[in-house]
């Protein structure tokens, strides 16, 4: 039965249920146990934002605190995955991928292909992304497009607690390396989540709401921003079809194209910076596959092409908001040749 729980609790429940079900699932990362096992309070932190809290007392040998060396523990997780474990490694901030990039894009992503399909690498790398918590340039980026670019990686970007749990369980059971992107401002978001285990398949978009006037494709935290905008626009009689792709790799191109074939208009809402982003990727897809259906130029609502500013005022301006989505929708519905 579904109850209302938070994004954080949904992720925790997914990890708990999969560790219970499959003894090859292990969890590792900085402060995942939080110094548990040392004298004092066991299970002190459960990761920097508490997602892994409660796992250590239940599965003591399978929750590993790691040194602050991403290149070492991500490499260890990738290696363990090739030898039969299903590690879930927490990288804390997605911005830290830089120091372990070789392990991810040149090792984990390549094994299946380099060894003729004989090697599988069932590793999940969890990482927080996104702006809004005043964490400045080095801890606030929305880097999911970077991983989407690399064949061999699957990239997951859950937009709600329901998505978070089902996609996490799918990620753990998947035989390929998965980059699991959690928005750091969403951990307290609540929603209905079944108590039972379930999986959401990769590459299947969720049509969050149906509409006939404009297709709005939004990723991660931007899905709720797009919904707010759609509420606003509905009052003005404009029907938005809001699509949450749920995974950027694989991408459910069919659902997006079918929708644009109906609406003739596209707005993409992407918290990432605009160049080589999901916004440009989806726009290119639609321009190529549904050009004949388009009745207006495509609009992209993204962050500006700059690092996330430290100034709170500028940071608030940096993140796409509902008003900008409303403006973009109005611009495509009002467009005339």
């Amino acid at each position, binding site marked *: 039965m579904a109850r209302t729980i938070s994004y954080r609790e949904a992720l925790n429940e997914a990890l708990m249920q999969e560790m219970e079900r499959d003894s090859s699932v292990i969890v590792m990362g900085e402060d995942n146990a939080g110094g548990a096992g040392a004298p004092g309070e066991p299970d002190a932190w459960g990761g920097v934002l508490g997602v892994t809290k409660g796992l250590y007392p239940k599965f003591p040998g399978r929750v590993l605190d790691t040194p602050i060396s991403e290149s070492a523990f991500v490499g260890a997780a990738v290696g363990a995955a090739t030898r039969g474990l299903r590690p879930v490694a927490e990288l804390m901030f997605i911005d830290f991928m830089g120091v372990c990039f070789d392990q991810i894009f040149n090792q984990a992503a390549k094994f299946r292909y380099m060894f003729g399909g004989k090697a599988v690498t069932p590793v999940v790398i969890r990482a927080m992304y996104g702006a809004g918590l005043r964490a400045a340039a080095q801890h606030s980026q929305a880097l999911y497009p970077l991983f989407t670019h690399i064949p061999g990686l699957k990239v997951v970007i859950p937009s709600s607690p329901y998505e978070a749990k089902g996609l996490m369980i799918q990620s753990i059971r998947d035989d390929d390396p998965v980059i699991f992107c959690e928005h750091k401002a969403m951990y307290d978001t609540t929603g209905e989540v079944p108590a039972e285990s379930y999986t*959401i398949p990769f590459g299947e978009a969720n049509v969050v709401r149906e509409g006939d006037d404009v297709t709005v494709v939004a990723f991660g935290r931007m899905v709720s921003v797009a919904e707010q905008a759609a509420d606003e626009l509905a009052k003005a009689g404009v029907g938005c079809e809001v699509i949450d792709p749920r995974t950027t790799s694989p991408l459910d191109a069919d659902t997006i194209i079918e929708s644009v074939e109906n609406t003739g208009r596209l707005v993409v809402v992407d918290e990432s910076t605009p160049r080589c982003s999901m916004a440009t990727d989806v726009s290119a897809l639609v321009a190529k596959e549904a050009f004949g259906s388009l009745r207006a130029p495509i609009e992209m609502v993204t962050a500006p092409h700059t690092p996330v500013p430290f100034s709170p005022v500028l940071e608030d301006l940096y993140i796409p908001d509902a008003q900008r989505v409303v403006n973009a929708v109005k611009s495509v519905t009002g467009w005339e040749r």
Partner: protein
Amino acid sequence: MADDRIGRVAMPKWGLSMKTGKIMEWVVAEGDEVEAGDDLAEIDTDKIAGTLEAVDGGVLRRIVVEAGAEAPVGCTIAVVAPADVPDADIDAVVKEAEEQLASGAVEEDEGPRQRTAEVGGRAVSYTTMGDGEDVVVLVHGYGGDKDSWLFVQEPLARSRTVHALDLPGHGDSAKDVGDGSLGTLADTVLGFLDALGIQRAHLVGHSLGGAVVTAAAAAAPDRVRSLTLVSPAGYGPEIDADYLRGFASAGTRRELRPHLLKLFADPGLVNRQLVDDLLKYKRLDGVDRALQTLLGTLLDGERSALDVAALPAKAGVPTVAVWGRADQVIPVAGAESLRPFATVHVVDGAGHMAQMETPAAVVAAVEEAAGRA
């Protein structure tokens, strides 16, 4: 003074989560004569759209909540009374309703409460409405759940205790179906009666559930007061095997939707919410195996593997059947094998899901069967 001839039409509660409903359209106008069972209004909730039917006959004296407006569950949305009830009395009821609405002090109808019973080592989830002495148990079909009785459970509960259960493998019940045989499912229904301490009940079954309640009645005729069958499986060899296999294997909205269209006479009922809710169910661990196992119970190649047509005669229980004329999953021809021992109502405007498309016909059938018990 309150006149007991004045009937308040209340916003219904369709399902656990429904808090408010929006009136899309009044099908009747003030001054119209209505009979019990007549359509009154189209109501939309965040989960489901349905038609509200009249409980009391009389004249629709006043509409309290206009089309386009939203109202909380339990709120008086219209007033029905005989023509000779003075206007002043009607005004008083309307005023009271409007004040209640304005103050937000509507008594929240508790609605169905979800509970769990332990039956044969499995958790069986169910909801209960009403508290009458007579007990009705509603058993859904393949891939369905207790919510498929939303529009039927509430009207039946006015004078009876009505339980709607989730069969194993469905809804919120345990997903293990064992061998998935008809016997196992029928034992679950009888075990459910035991678990709740119910001596005798009126059983209502839809599709696979129709075969299940038939088998339960044959196994324990002394426990079953009447049978109401809605497009039951097991009467006649015809069944749409493509639908069943397609439903079982569909993993995406695109795959599932075309199959669901076969369920209804009105394809507009296959909305996003219905497809999403079914996908959420199908993603749960264990559901895939349950549905595949039950396919073996339902199908023998392209034909129905179930044959329960001889059982009701053996059970000797009053039986009434309702069949949608537009049923594409189990064609209405199956009704012929019921006629020797049951009253059969073939209804227009319904496909395989008469309990959702023509709920009044299903309610009337249950009343009819119960009346003969």
